[in-house]
């Protein structure tokens, strides 16, 4: 008798916990905030597991009812050592572990990861995960050789460079965008950018856009760029400096990394931390913390609402198609 009642309670608690998780996922989907935690490509799996947990919870309710009816005593208990322990404190601790995420989930508000997460993770102002081909001359003379050196870009500039690569004869695009077999996609996209007056950075392929611009940054000096993101500041930035950034996520927030461009604006102080803006600016270069990075000379700022899906994701398709739309 004792045994059955003991098991019944365990079955009920487990049912409640499983149902709790299942409802939590449903709740997030209903308030359209699941994307705050999970990348879209992973969402189906989370939804399937919500269904599975609900079914398992229902099963536990069934078991609880069964064991409280004492009907199952002829069925052999599973003998593999999975019976829950008899120790009270142990059980409380174990189930508390499961309740903790649920508690946090329901009790705390759903917030978009912004400057706080970015300051812990470290902002990426220059995209280093693409191999840097050797920098072309501002006025291309002959084709460059591509080096496979991964050392930091040469820091020959100090201060902001604003001169555009000018030449009387039309520059040879292949010379401006040297590539090896791995950065060809970026080179192709870069060539498309080169022909545009204004580069609008889209959400789809955000990372690839800024990688391309950063990789061939010397070619884009003087070009206008439109970028949307949240405002982020580091302590040692000047009062007219901030970063327009987006959190890039691969599958969940634990792997999210913030990426963005630094911007300078005389009215920067008006923008609070984590304000969402669309910023139009002209590309220039600057040395910051030992790296040469892109800095946008701001022309226009519009505050916007945070998008429904505030994060950006790696683009799995052909990136040159992004600009052809």
């Amino acid at each position, binding site marked *: 008798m004792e045994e059955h009642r003991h098991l019944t309670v365990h079955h009920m608690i487990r049912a409640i916990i499983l149902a709790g998780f299942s409802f939590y996922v449903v709740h997030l989907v209903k308030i359209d905030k699941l994307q705050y935690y999970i990348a879209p490509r992973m969402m189906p799996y989370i939804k399937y597991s919500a269904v599975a947990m609900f079914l398992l919870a229902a099963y536990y309710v069934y078991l609880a009812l069964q064991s409280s009816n004492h009907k199952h005593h002829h069925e052999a208990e599973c*003998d593999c050592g*999975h019976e829950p322990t008899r120790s009270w404190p142990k059980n409380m601790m174990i189930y508390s*572990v499961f309740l903790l995420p649920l508690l*946090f989930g329901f009790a705390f508000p759903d917030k978009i990861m912004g400057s706080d997460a970015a300051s*812990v993770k470290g902002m990426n102002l220059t995209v280093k995960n*693409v191999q840097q081909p050797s920098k072309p001359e501002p006025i291309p003379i002959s084709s460059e050789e591509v080096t496979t050196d991964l050392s930091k870009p040469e820091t020959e500039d100090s201060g902001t460079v604003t001169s555009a690569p000018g030449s009387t004869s039309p520059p040879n695009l292949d010379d401006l965008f040297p590539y090896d077999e791995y950065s060809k996609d970026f080179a192709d996209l870069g060539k498309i950018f080169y022909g545009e007056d204004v580069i609008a950075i889209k959400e789809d392929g955000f990372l690839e856009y800024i990688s391309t611009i950063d990789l061939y940054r010397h070619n884009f000096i003087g070009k206008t760029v439109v970028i949307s993101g949240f405002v982020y500041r580091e302590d040692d930035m000047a009062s007219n400096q901030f970063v327009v950034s987006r959190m890039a996520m*691969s599958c969940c927030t*634990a792997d999210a990394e913030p990426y963005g461009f630094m911007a300078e604006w005389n009215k920067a102080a008006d923008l609070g931390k984590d304000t969402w803006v669309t910023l139009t600016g002209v590309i220039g270069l600057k040395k910051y913390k030992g790296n040469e990075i892109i800095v946008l000379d701001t022309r226009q700022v519009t505050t916007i609402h945070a998008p429904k899906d505030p994060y950006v994701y790696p683009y799995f398709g052909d990136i040159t198609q992004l600009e052809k739309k």
Partner: protein
Amino acid sequence: MNQKSILHWRPEITYIIAIALVVAIGLHPEWLSTDVIFNSSRISTFKTMLISIVLETLPFLLLGVVISSLMHVFIPEAWIRRFIPKNPVLGILIACLLGILFPVCECGLIPVVRRLMAKGMPLYTGVAFMLAGPVVNPVVYSATYVAFRSRPELVYARMGLAVAVALIIGLVIYFFVKSNPIKDTRESVNVGSPFKVLRVTKKSGRFNEAIRHAGSEFFDMGKYVIIGSILAAFIQSFVPRSELLAIGHGEYTSHLFMMGFAYFLSLCSTSDAFVASSFLGTFSASSLLTFMVFGPMIDMKGTLMLLSVFKARFVVLIIALLAVIVPLGSLLVDKLFW
């Protein structure tokens, strides 16, 4: 009702009431109007990390316990033994390739391996599978490929090194580990238990048993997964990375750092490539390789789960072997191939 059962019941009822309260508050969050307390930024980040990590693990954990339970009920004893070749090297290589069939992250893999070993898979093969599985599968391959689009040598090196490490450790176990390291607590699987004859043989009875098993295993393993997630979320939200980065930059210390980093971050093998790629400018490629091979093989969550299956001494052995072989392997790859 005697005295004993009253005492036995009351705390349980209180407990259930407490759970019900949580659910009720969840449905009516306006009852918790103290927005001020809950707005602390780090706590917010912690909550986001925790929920994200836990939610992301759930599908894999569920998949792992379901597969494990189905195997427990439907696959006869010692069936697996017939399929594993006697030759240890061959056996381990096959185990590594099994990872391609089971693209489950380590949380789902450990219950499966435990079950396989109960069904006759030798220890060294099981461990090799457990180590290589989280890395050598198509999901991780494509995730690494996308993160390191321009450095495919890192993708190939990751796969190759994982197989090599699994092979070496598997062989070490084959030759040197003679006693059975599986914990004989009540939680471990009882092989050849006399109660097996009582097992219900009807199809529906076996199916029922599979589900019960899955549920039990979910809670057994799940508690370690969640504890590990809490720790990882804590580190992710409260320890600024810049302070960690200041530490390990030397040619050899960077490997040490990367191992510790991978261990404490406890990232899923499908997404650690993304994090690693953000370090390309600051860390050597070979130390990133260490990060991407060591991390999926062992981390906080994994250690907890292993400790529930194996004796502590064995777990320590595995960790020690990994901590030595993985960086050595990465450095070798760096010197020889790059």
